């Protein structure tokens, strides 16, 4: 009788502990909308594989940084890197997660995707409003043999603060001194010309509706909505088309080696094959977490995503980080976060 009771008690205890061990941990992150599609796909796959759930709120990079500073989430995601001073001040660390491309899109009758050639300087002059017509010599000189209509150029930009705008304006200020001094770069700027569409969706719709317009969207959007994008001349002087290889080449040739805390904006990357407007999103986490079990799962998730999430990323037209960068990130985890 007594032994039986004891046995039941032991069983109950064992099952309780067993449950405790298998209990899934729910972690939360917030920030950039640029990575939202791929993180939500990863988290579904990851939950299948490990049972740990991840809840990601796509609230914008600024809000993501604000929330991680408050400590209300396990990781933040931002399209603009935080400075090393800021990171140290709050005890945070950051690393890139996935790469994507931003492409100039145009609505020009008779011009197919990838046909129109633009240099950074010309693109900047268009966005400054200095080049106002499509048959401007600056454009026709780059495109001998391409029949370009003489339309007026209508510039379309993002009306909402966004990482896409951040990287696009960052590129323009790298290639145009005038842009760098007049407009500068940021998630939102005072646009010298044009109209503002809300989100990638708004910009691509406006570009489709206005003949002779030019805009910029994430590559996946241009591809999905079959809007014709332009090819660009990169920092090495080569003409490149936007695709997974050229985005990967930009990520591979950006100057990660000399950067502290991966604080590199990889626009205008030097490689021969590099797409000039390539972007990443930084994941921001506490170095000494208040909630170690959550942080452990978060690390596990990003390790899993770097190693096993590549196919999912490329199915959504993102590009996984190059192997050398992955190694560097894992080294950073070990040295700065004490996570192996």
């Amino acid at each position, binding site marked *: 009788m007594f032994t039986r009771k004891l046995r039941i008690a032991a069983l109950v205890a064992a099952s309780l502990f067993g449950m405790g061990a298998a209990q899934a941990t729910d972690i939360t992150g917030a920030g950039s909308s640029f990575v939202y599609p791929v993180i939500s796909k990863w988290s579904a796959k990851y939950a299948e594989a490990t049972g740990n759930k991840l809840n990601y709120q796509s609230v914008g990079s600024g809000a993501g940084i604000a929330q991680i500073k408050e400590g209300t989430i396990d990781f933040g995601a931002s399209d603009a890197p935080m400075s090393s001073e800021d990171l140290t001040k709050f005890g945070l660390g950051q690393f890139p997660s996935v790469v994507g491309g931003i492409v100039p899109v145009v609505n020009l009758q008779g011009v197919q995707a990838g046909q129109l050639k633009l240099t950074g300087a010309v693109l900047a002059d268009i966005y400054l409003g200095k080049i106002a017509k499509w048959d401007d010599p600056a454009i026709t000189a780059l495109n001998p043999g391409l029949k370009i209509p003489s339309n007026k150029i209508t510039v379309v930009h993002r*009306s909402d603060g966004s990482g896409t705008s951040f990287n696009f304006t960052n590129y323009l200020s790298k290639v145009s001194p005038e842009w760098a001094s007049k407009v500068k770069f940021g998630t*939102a700027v*005072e646009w010298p010309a044009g*109209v503002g569409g*809300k989100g990638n969706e708004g910009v691509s719709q406006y570009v489709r509706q206005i003949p002779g317009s030019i805009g910029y969207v994430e590559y996946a959007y241009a591809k999905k909505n079959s809007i014709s994008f332009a090819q660009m001349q990169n920092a090495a002087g080569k003409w490149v088309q936007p695709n997974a290889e050229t985005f990967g080449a930009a990520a591979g040739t950006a100057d990660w080696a000399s950067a502290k805390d991966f604080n590199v904006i990889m626009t205008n990357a030097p490689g021969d094959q590099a797409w000039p407007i390539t972007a990443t999103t930084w994941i921001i986490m506490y170095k000494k977490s208040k909630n170690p079990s959550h942080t452990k799962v978060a690390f596990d998730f990003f390790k899993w995503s770097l190693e096993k999430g590549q196919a999912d990323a490329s199915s959504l037209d993102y590009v996984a980080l190059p192997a050398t960068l992955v190694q560097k990130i894992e080294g950073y985890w070990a040295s700065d976060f004490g996570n192996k």
Partner: protein
Amino acid sequence: MHATVSNAVPSAERAAEAARNAKDTRDDRIFAWILKGCALIVLLALVGAAGSTLWLGSDAFHTFGFGFLTSAAWDPSNDQYGALVPIMGTIGTAFIALLFAVPVSFGIALFLTEIAPQWLRGPVSSAIELLAGIPSIIYGMWGLFIFAPFVAEHIKPWLMNNFSADPPDGQVSWLVTHVPGIAKFFSSEYPFFGAGVLTAGLVLAVMIIPFISSVMREVFQTVPTRLKESAYALGSSTWEVVWDIVVPYTRTAVIGGVFLGLGRALGETMAVAFVLGNTFKFSLSFLETSSSIASTIANQFGEAQGLQRSALMALAFLLFVVTFIVLLIARLMLRRLATKEGK
């Protein structure tokens, strides 16, 4: 109720009655307190929201002072902000919305209460209520995908051909050459682009018609049949009955309904963000793109930090001020009308 107590009543009964009286007064007092509390919640919410936007926006008000109201700059990279364009855009779109929504709502309400056959009133009324229930993002998408291209193709070219100094067909109309200043209201930097103040105003009009027309319908139904039938008996036409009996009888409530719709138009966010074009260039033209207070906040709040966030909060406070001023004007108009009554 139990006040009349005669001397013949035994004292026990009298005591019971006194106790009941005391309980009644106490219950009444509690009830009054609860009601007062309900009303106070509204006041508290209002003061709290206005106060916190003022508090969070104080940084911007301090930095720019009065110039915040008159500056057309919105430059996050150099931290220069001004509220002029968003305020103009807000008022402009709401004005156009009212211009179209009020007459149409008036027609709908009159049709439903005076002219429509009984079997039609039910379905049309429910259709209007359904329209009121559509979320604003749906209107935004509809505006972006369907209505803005329609405006660009059909409405805007016609308006520009007839009223602007730079018409697409190249022929400046007689009106423009003879009426100075009119072209200023119909110029457009992007003639083939549908989004703008007019488009946003028209989308807003569709959004507020259900509110205004259902209020109007309700109050038109309160007009005593006696009055209307007397007028008909004296030989009035339907129009005379409407204009001389129904409208004067319900004037105050009708204007109240109009301002309910105006309130919604001033604060509408998502729909406007999609069809206004979101630019910060000062212009008087109805065909030009612009920004509204609510759409600017919705667009930029997620990524805003520091002074930019404060400027957005200051904008939110200004929306309170604009709405308050508009309501004040409405009250004054009502008082004016009231003094004229019976003359």
